[in-house]
């Protein structure tokens, strides 16, 4: 008995330790890689003494205060509005026919990398953009585009809108996964029978339960929005840009000494994420208080339901704009020439699409990387969930490591990580890249698989065991079919997350391993809309095709278990 206890204990410790080493170590190495330069120590450049100089020169640089304020403002507003829109859509449209339409675009929108959405939005909303071309010159009277500060605008609203277009679908997707574990219909029936309106029912009863389950992804959205790079490059104001862009410029400055103050900026970015999360906590407390008061007050709230359709439509606007932007991207990929104010391309051609073969190696790399990292993450999570008791899985340290990428801005540790990897000769290797992608995918896999594993009906398991099925056999014949949908969702989300990773691929891939996403951002920086539009289409292709295959495969193979399953792929 004692021996058994120690071995369990040892197993628990070893799992927590592996978690620490696999997930925490690279991030810590990465952060230490910017901590030392931030403190003035960078021997390769001849800085061998600690000093406050990098910190001071970063803070004293023109526009830094405004850059920090801009990042905080856009990040917080974008996160709040995204969550709000997500909740409004769920409340207002969940049972509506429009929702099946929204739901169908979700997979595509989650899968589309940020840069592709940004490219599309710029083209849609700029003063010379598609909207203005449709309205000109008949309605607006413009023969050449007006000099309006629309995209990017000086206040960051374009960036906020772009972030919303990308984050609302993501939050909807995770919310739907959460909803599948809740008896929503019953809640509604009970609340209705007590006279509560729809808004009241959802706000007081259902949304808080959903929020509890999606809280970590919400933090991921918050930290990402506070430190976004690829989208900000296209949509944010540039004088000054948000903090993360200032840091990136520092890292990319030809004057190598600029890396020292930039490293301090990277540390500041972590602090900013901390401040953002702190403000969020306060907001959460206020909401809790408000809902609590409402519950106790007993107001049925029937009268606000009539505004719901208006708000629902407003909440869908960012999604519609993103879709229209993608349509524009497709149009550009087949456009010969298209000048203002023509509402549609003047000539079409397929030159760019004839080039598809040259993108094949990139597509193959992206697919291998996304698939490899997603399956690796799934393997790790499953292995842990079977090897470790629940207490280990709830271990704070382990959870802290796994969810680390949600809380630390990418820009803050990737350069340091690159230095560490290069020291052991691992940069630019498949091993390192799959590992890093896995670090970013694993939190999502965890959030999907662990609840599904816990929700397995233990009685079925016991029944199978009494019939003599071994552990392995029970896993294959019982657990996999029952968890088929969550497992499929985990793979799909993994692929989508991997496809969207830009900075990690650039820094860790060391240029040796390139994905279609890196190519797309590079083409977008080149300003040729045709190839950029094509690259955006190819970027979407992988996740959308994987979605279709996973969905169809699950339906064929495991469809007959549907009555016993939970967490269906949406």
């Amino acid at each position, binding site marked *: 008995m004692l021996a058994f206890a120690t071995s369990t204990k040892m197993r628990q410790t070893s799992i927590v330790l592996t978690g620490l080493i696999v997930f925490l170590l690279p991030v810590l190495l990465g952060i230490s890689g910017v901590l030392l330069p931030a403190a003035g120590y960078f021997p390769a450049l001849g800085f061998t003494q600690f000093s406050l100089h990098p910190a001071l020169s970063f803070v004293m640089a023109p526009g830094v205060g405004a850059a920090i304020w801009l990042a905080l403002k856009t990040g917080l507003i974008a996160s709040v509005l995204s969550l709000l829109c997500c909740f409004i859509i769920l409340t207002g449209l969940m049972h509506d026919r429009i929702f099946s339409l929204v739901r169908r675009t979700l997979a595509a929108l989650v899968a589309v990398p940020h840069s592709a959405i940004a490219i599309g939005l710029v083209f849609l909303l700029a003063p010379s953009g598609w909207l203005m071309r449709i309205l000109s010159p008949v309605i607006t009277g413009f023969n050449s585009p007006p000099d309006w*500060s629309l995209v990017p605008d000086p206040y960051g609203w374009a960036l906020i809108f772009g972030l919303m277009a990308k984050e609302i679908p993501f939050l909807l997707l995770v919310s739907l996964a959460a909803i599948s574990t809740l008896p929503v219909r019953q809640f509604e029936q009970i609340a209705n029978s007590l006279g509560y309106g729809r808004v009241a029912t959802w706000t007081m009863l259902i949304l808080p339960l959903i929020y509890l389950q999606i809280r970590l992804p919400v933090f991921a959205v918050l930290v990402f929005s506070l430190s976004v790079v690829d989208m900000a490059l296209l949509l944010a104001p*540039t004088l000054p840009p948000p903090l993360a862009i200032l840091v990136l410029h520092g890292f990319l400055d030809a004057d*190598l000494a600029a890396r020292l103050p930039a490293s301090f900026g990277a540390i500041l970015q972590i602090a900013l994420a901390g401040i953002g999360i702190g403000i969020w906590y306060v907001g959460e407390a206020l909401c809790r208080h408000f809902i609590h008061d409402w519950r106790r007050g007993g107001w049925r709230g029937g009268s606000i339901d009539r505004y719901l359709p208006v708000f629902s439509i407003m909440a869908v606007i960012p999604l519609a704009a993103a879709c229209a932007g993608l349509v524009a991207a497709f149009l550009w990929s087949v456009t010969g020439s298209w*000048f203002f104010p023509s509402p549609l391309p003047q000539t079409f051609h397929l030159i760019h699409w004839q080039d598809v073969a040259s993108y094949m190696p990139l597509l193959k790399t992206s697919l291998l990387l996304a698939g490899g990292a997603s399956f690796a993450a799934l393997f790790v999570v499953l292995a842990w969930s079977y090897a470790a008791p629940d207490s280990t899985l709830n271990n704070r340290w382990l959870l802290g490591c796994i969810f680390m990428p949600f809380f630390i801005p990418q820009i803050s540790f990737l350069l340091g990580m690159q230095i560490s990897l290069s020291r052991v000769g691992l940069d630019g290797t498949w091993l390192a890249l799959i590992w890093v992608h896995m670090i970013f995918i694993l939190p999502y896999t965890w959030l999907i698989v662990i609840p599904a594993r816990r929700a397995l009906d233990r009685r079925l398991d016991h029944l199978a065991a009494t019939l003599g099925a071994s552990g392995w056999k029970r896993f294959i014949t019982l657990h996999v079919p029952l968890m088929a949908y969550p497992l499929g969702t985990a793979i799909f989300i993994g692929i989508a997350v991997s496809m969207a990773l830009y900075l990690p691929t650039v820094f860790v891939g060391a240029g040796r391993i390139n994905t279609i996403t890196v*190519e797309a951002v590079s083409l977008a920086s080149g*300003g040729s809309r045709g190839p950029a539009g094509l690259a955006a289409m190819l970027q979407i292709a992988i996740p959308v095709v994987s979605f279709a295959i996973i969905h169809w495969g699950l339906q064929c193979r495991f469809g007959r278990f549907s009555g016993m399953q939970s967490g269906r792929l949406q």
Partner: protein
Amino acid sequence: MICQRRHFLIQICAYLLLGLVFAYPVQSAQSAHFDSLKPAAKGQTVYFNAWGGDAKINGYISWAGDILKQRYDITLVHVKLTDTASAVSRLLAEKTARRDTDGTIDLLWVNGENFAAMKRADLLQKQPWVTHLPNWQLTDPVALPAILSDFAEPTDGKESPWGRAQLVFAYDSEKLPTPPRSAAALAQFIENNPGRFTFPQPPDFIGVSFLKQVLIELTNSHPSLYGPVDEADFDRVTAPLWDWLDAAKPNLWRRGMAYPQNYPVLRQLLGDGEIDIAMAFNPADASAAIARGELPDSVRTYIHDGGTLANVHFLAIPFNAAAAEAAQIVANFMLSPEAQIKKADSRIWGDPTVLSIPRLNAADQVGFLALPRGIATLSDAELGRSLAEPHPSWVPRLEQAWKQRYASGQ
């Protein structure tokens, strides 16, 4: 037209004669040294880090890759950068990690301040290698001194010239009959046409080049621009530039509150009709964009009457290149008449050659002269007036001063 053709024929004959006299450089011990590289280079993979934002350039590099594979069994992998400084940054990371061999970059497309930064941080090959390249004999450092000094920084034989560039402006001749051909005329144009001019935001390469162009013009090529920046003098020398910018700012595109991030985006703004004048460092850029349908075919190019900035871009091999031998063979191939003719073709890329035409053999001279010029590309004679690049130390200093004045958005 006939006159032009006759002129062309005479030119060909003249070059042919000159070619007969000069074309055959003596086979030297240098090329023997070069030949000894070939066995080691065979089978090597060269990771060529080069800006990847232009589909035409990418196509050219992959063409070169095919030939290198066939002839030398060298695999050329184009690592597409969005910013060359990121490669310099990676080399620095490798140096920090003491990775002195087997680095991730074998060949880098570079010039100006990135080269100066690499030189300062010792990120280049220890030994000079460029003058050993057989095709180096086809260049003429006397006629084109810029191949020996990159933005006034001596190349020390550590980067091989690849192509030439000159700042040219593009405008839509249907909307703007007479473009402003000097910094002073441009100031007037901006005042009369609010919101119709802008430039890429420094520290973008073209953006800073534009600042240098205006500075050189307004100060009549002040001699101190061609030496390291003298802090004591900086404010006085640059004062005319800041006056010019302060006056222009309220009438720039977006009232000077936002700038395009690079020149392709600037070109796109011209195509979209948001601005009237764009600029690029490649004289054939506008023609190529017209051919792709990105600019209207009424777009033409011009340079300022006093000349515009011109420079050379290079290929460098880092200190820790894993395939240094093969990288030299690649650099030599890129310098060959075959590769340079292809590159100068505006249908392929349109980048002017660094070779000296008189030093080529007759067939190659004809190859260059027979290249079609794009509809909007200026002739060599029109491009003739060029301004030398200031010392590279001016780039970071101008960037910093611009940032100090305009970056806070006020």
